[in-house]
């Protein structure tokens, strides 16, 4: 079975002359089809872990074994060029990932429903619109595993419905790594939970237990 395995993953940042360890020899195994909710306090290293799995930050030490294709992290900021329009970003992604332009445009327009603002610079988008663009563009490419960092929670009801259809129904078999503070959402969506605390990752036997631990921090 294809798996995503993080082995002894550490990440340290240098702030001035000081070295700050964020994650310390973390181990994590994700099976294909898992929906892993990642919980933790602010600054615990959730986004850092997601970024390392997404291949953006290089781990200070340790290895990640990719048994499946992994999306870029869907987060605020990040993957898009703010000065370019959503449409320009789409064209860039079509070129990089070698996708059919017309088909992708149809899909993204249908999903994101940005209307004329699709042709405005991304930096003028509200966070909800940003999330819609990010989702539709990454769903235009069929990844085995999607990394979602908070961004899902900002959409309106209609967007939530679309995510429900496109991500949780149509792509029910995919692996999801979701960072969120919304425990209801995690409970509703995920089948596993991990808690990041004190530079370590703790896997819980059930989602409810993970959420309980998170509240007891």
């Amino acid at each position, binding site marked *: 079975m294809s798996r995503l395995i993080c082995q002894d993953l550490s990440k340290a940042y240098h702030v001035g002359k000081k070295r700050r360890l964020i994650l310390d020899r973390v181990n994590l195994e994700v099976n294909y089809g898992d929906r892993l909710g990642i919980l933790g306090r602010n600054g615990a290293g959730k986004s850092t872990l997601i970024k390392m799995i997404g291949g953006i930050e290089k781990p200070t030490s340790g290895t990640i074994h990719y048994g499946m294709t992994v999306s870029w992290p869907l987060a605020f900021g990040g*993957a898009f060029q703010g000065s370019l329009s959503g449409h320009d970003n789409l064209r860039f992604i079509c070129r990089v990932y070698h996708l059919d332009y017309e088909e992708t445009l149809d899909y993204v327009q249908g999903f994101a429903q940005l209307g004329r603002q699709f042709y405005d610079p991304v930096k003028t988008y509200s966070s909800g619109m940003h999330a819609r663009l990010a989702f539709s563009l990454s769903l235009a490419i069929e990844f085995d595993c999607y990394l979602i960092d908070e961004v899902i929670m900002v959409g309106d009801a209609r967007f939530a419905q679309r995510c429900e259809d496109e991500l949780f129904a149509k792509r029910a078999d995919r692996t999801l790594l979701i960072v969120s503070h919304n425990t209801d959402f995690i409970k509703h969506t995920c089948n596993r939970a991990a808690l990041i605390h004190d530079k370590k990752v703790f896997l819980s036997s059930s989602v409810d237990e993970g959420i309980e631990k998170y509240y007891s921090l």
Partner: protein
Amino acid sequence: MVNKKVRSAKKHVNLTLSQSILTQLRVIYALIMRETLTRYGRENIGFLWVVGEPILFCGGVTIMWTLVRPSHEHGLRMTAMVVTGYVPLVLFRHAVVRSTKAYAVNSSLLYHRLVTPLDIITARITLEVIGVMMAAILVLCGAVSLGYMELPEDWALTLSGFGFVVFFTYGISFIFSYLTERSDLLEKTVSVLTYLALPWTGAFVMIDWIPPKYRWVLEYTSPIANGIEMMRSGFFGSKVVPHYSICFMTYTSLLTFMVGVYLCLRVRPHIELS
């Protein structure tokens, strides 16, 4: 080539060597298209600024020098001297300046696994090369049709000389892209350094004009001066005594290029992500 209709990310995994090369070329093309948009936008002449910027530089300087300097220097036409010196110089300076902190400002691109730092810098420099070459053609056409200079006597020699300058420029830009990512001090001083390097590029003189005692400075330390010398040798033919060595240019440029590629492959952990 992988099918465009296939939407699965799996098509980018386990590529053969030729597929990987095609993928990187596609990524570089995508980056060039994107860079033209982010740099010049769609306002007024838009992407035409790619050539607009260098042409203002080359054309402006050529006109200035043609006006204020004597029409001939050491028996060579002033305009031709300026064009053959300034085109490579503008390329070198712009490329080096553009390579500073090229990754930090483009860190959002690194969200896409297929985009590597080497792609980013290659795209930037290639855009610069395209712009300068187009500007050079326009300036050459303008100056020749107005009768201020003649076409090169030996095109092959001129273009090879320029080719060596381009080759060296890629290498040195790769190196600067790495070094400026690591050192803020260097980043701040790059524009001063490129200015101080002006005499070293040999853009304003023929090596034959300087006293034999000092010729080695340009002849044996400066690949750019060698390249410019070769260009001029092609331009003026038997009117000049060129001092250049293809062997020297080949090994210095190749070495610079290889060091540059090596550094660009290792720069990833040092890039500050926003």
